[in-house]
């Protein structure tokens, strides 16, 4: 027992003190941060798309511009309120014309800032009526009439950099229209050239009569993957065309909106006492939280048992193993190694868990999620944490036994890497079935896979929100423990022969023969001799 402890202690210290381990600890949180932050950063660095519009209709471009201005102003109004709520310092830097709007903005319903902004633009520039404008508070309608012109004049005179500073979501951050209101066909040839040269991202041609149909309207670009501009401009144009059609058919926009209103089914769930309850975002997340744990579990089990394998191969290739075997038995050595790496793994995984919990506590807040979305209480749910740790230990033991057996017959790290793909192929399965099982945690697939021991840890973790019945827990765990005992027994037999073996790694058939042979017997392929 003391020898097992000595081996484990050395194994733990040797692994924990490496740079690789520190990197490993930081790797996971770094990966998460990069995965979350990178798309946003990339979005920010993307330069604004330059586009031109050839308007054959004579009215639609102006209408679209109005709508875009209204939307941009809406964003600005929203951020005025946000800044007012957050703190005096930022708010005091806003231009007075915006500061004065706070009392009016306060009276608006959520989302009404856009209606107000569009209505303000329409009130000044004329044009199509804005749906919902009648429901704006009286004060807002008055402001639109009295101060609208001044606000629009200020806004249109604002340099783009200052406009962007007011709200990150204004359109000029992403799309910039360059002059091009001409309508002659010769201009299109000129625009084609500019698109080809990369000077323009794309240009639009609006057909002569867009209210009748799409004839003559087109979008020309050499970029086939980024559809944002087409969708954004297209939806603004469609809105305005729709409004025009309603007007020409003399249909009240309110009526039109009501006609289009879908029938909504309120989603409810049954509480444990059988009462109907509203479903909150939190409940959905609770259902999906295990998936995050499965992912973490998968990475942990795989990387830690891999660590054991590589460690065994390195020990073998450094030829220190026979010296050790003169002092400890192979089984003691194996037990010590498995225990030492388990301790290393637990240290690693616990630190990841801490990062994970801290991450769920602070990251959503940084990304603007409401405080009511309490992710960290999900992440620290004892059922999840305890099942995670239990399944980590069980999963690690199973895969450790398999990989240490494989590792012991390899002489170099590259031999070992050649052995990994089949194991990997098998291990992909619980990862692929993660989402289907998350959707249906007590379904057929989930139940069947729970009883396949190599999948049990991942699948049962996956089902934690179900949750599975106690009977299932007992049976699957018993089966898993039996498999671990069998795998350790076979792994130990392979290990005690494999570690002394030099030369080409044996075939699977030979390894299976070792497992079947009685302890102490060492069957070896007939074409090699021991010295």
């Amino acid at each position, binding site marked *: 027992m003391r020898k097992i402890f000595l081996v484990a202690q*050395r194994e733990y210290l040797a692994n924990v003190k490496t740079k690789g381990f520190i990197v490993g600890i930081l790797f996971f949180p770094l990966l998460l941060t990069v995965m979350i932050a990178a798309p946003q950063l990339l979005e920010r660095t993307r330069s604004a798309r330059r586009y031109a519009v050839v308007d054959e209709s004579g009215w639609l471009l102006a209408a679209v511009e109005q709508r875009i201005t209204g939307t941009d102003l809406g964003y600005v109004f929203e951020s005025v309120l946000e800044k007012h709520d957050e703190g005096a310092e930022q708010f005091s830097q806003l231009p007075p014309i915006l500061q004065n709007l706070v009392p009016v903005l306060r009276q608006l319903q959520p989302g009404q800032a856009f209606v107000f902004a569009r209505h303000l633009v329409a009130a000044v520039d004329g044009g199509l009526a804005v749906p919902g404008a009648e429901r704006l508070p009286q004060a807002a309608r008055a402001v639109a009439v009295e101060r609208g012109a001044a606000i629009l004049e200020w806004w249109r005179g604002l340099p783009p950099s200052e406009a962007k500073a007011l709200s990150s979501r204004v359109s000029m951050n992403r799309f910039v229209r360059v002059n091009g209101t001409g309508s002659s066909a010769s201009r299109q040839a000129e625009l084609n050239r500019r698109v080809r040269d990369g000077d323009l991202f794309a240009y639009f041609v609006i057909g002569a009569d867009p209210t009748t149909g799409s004839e003559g309207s087109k979008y020309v670009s050499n970029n086939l993957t980024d559809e944002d501009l087409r969708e954004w401009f297209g939806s603004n144009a469609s809105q305005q065309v729709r409004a025009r059609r309603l007007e020409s058919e003399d249909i009240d926009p309110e009526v039109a909106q009501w006609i289009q209103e879908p029938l909504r089914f309120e989603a409810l769930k049954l509480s444990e006492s059988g009462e109907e309850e509203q479903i909150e975002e939190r409940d959905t997340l609770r259902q999906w939280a295990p998936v995050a744990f499965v992912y973490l579990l998968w990475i942990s089990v795989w990387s830690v048992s891999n660590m054991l394998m590589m460690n065994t191969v390195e020990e073998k290739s450094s*030829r220190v193993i026979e*010296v050790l075997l*003169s002092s400890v038995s192979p089984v003691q050595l194996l037990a010590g190694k498995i225990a030492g790496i388990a301790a290393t793994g637990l240290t690693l995984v616990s630190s990841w868990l801490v990062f994970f919990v801290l991450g769920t506590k602070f990251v959503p807040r940084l990304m603007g999620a409401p405080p009511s979305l309490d992710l960290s209480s999900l992440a620290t749910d004892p059922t999840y944490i305890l099942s995670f740790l239990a399944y980590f230990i069980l999963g690690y033991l199973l895969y450790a036994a398999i990989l240490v057996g494989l590792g012991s017959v390899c002489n170099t790290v590259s031999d070992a890497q050649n052995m990994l793909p089949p194991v990997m192929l098998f291990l992909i399965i619980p990862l692929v079935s993660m989402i289907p099982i998350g959707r249906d945690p007590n379904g057929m697939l989930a139940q069947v896979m729970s009883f396949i021991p190599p999948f049990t840890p991942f699948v049962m973790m996956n089902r934690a929100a179900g949750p599975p019945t106690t009977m299932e827990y007992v049976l699957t765990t018993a089966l898993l423990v039996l498999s671990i005992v069998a795998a350790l027994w076979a792994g130990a037999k392979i290990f005690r022969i494999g570690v002394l073996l030099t030369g080409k790694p044996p075939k699977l058939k030979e390894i299976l023969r070792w497992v079947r042979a009685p302890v102490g017997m060492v069957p070896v392929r007939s074409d090699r*001799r021991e*010295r």
Partner: protein
Amino acid sequence: MNNALTLTSVTKRFGSVVAVEDVSVSVPYGSIYGFLGPNGAGKTTTIRMIMSILYPDAGSITVLGSAPETIKDRLGYLPEEKGLYKKMKAGDMLAYFGKLKGMASGEAGARATKLLEQFGLGEWTDKKCEALSKGMGQKVQILGTLIHDPELVILDEPFAGLDPVNVEIIRDLILELRRRGRTVIFSTHVMEQAEQICDYIFLINKGRKVLDGTLAEVKSRGDQGLVVDYDGDGSVFRRLPGVRRINDAGKTAEIFLEEGTNPQEILKQLVDAVTVRRFDMREPSLHEVFIRAVGGENDA
């Protein structure tokens, strides 16, 4: 019980290959016992069985009066395939070997430091093993074998890869062990080394014992030969009549005569062709014994 090690009819098979067959040998306490044999003869397998890393299929092994697996802590073993943990400090490495043999942690650490000092490696105590040269690494390994002061030490090719200075240091170490009453088994295929320090010889070939006994006994079994130290063109040896075998090493040669050949005649012919510095009659070298035993068997 006056034997440190007794093997009785030990047989070990790997599948259809017989690695060691019906080998019996006794190693007395306080002796230096050489295990000799060509590559693949079964030396390492025999040693692994003594260390209970492998188990014999038949026969029995008694080490220090007990079954081998029960007294691992009283044995020291330097395998042929040896290595150190690259990232571990030399001092920690030695101490770890000691602790695995049952030494208390503090004692092992203190003794590791002392041994490294004693063998001129003091400044390496806190250096990682990967920084050691091959010879230094080997010295650390040998010290690791001895740190717990074992009663029986088995050294598999301890001199391989060492320079003459270190060979001497290790040889002195082995002789010192015998002086203190320890038993040393060491395997080699360099006959000169074995001849210099062994009290007993055990020769194995193709898994079978070829001969064993004291060095003197083994050598006296072979017939006497002429030893000639010379300078000049050695091709003359091939023209000598009445000669059965010659081991010509360039500056010195061992000549075995056929029945009835007069050594005086041989000397006469030699002085005409080369400068003879020494010419005497004596027991065959271990090299000759080895070649004859192994070669003869191979011819059969």
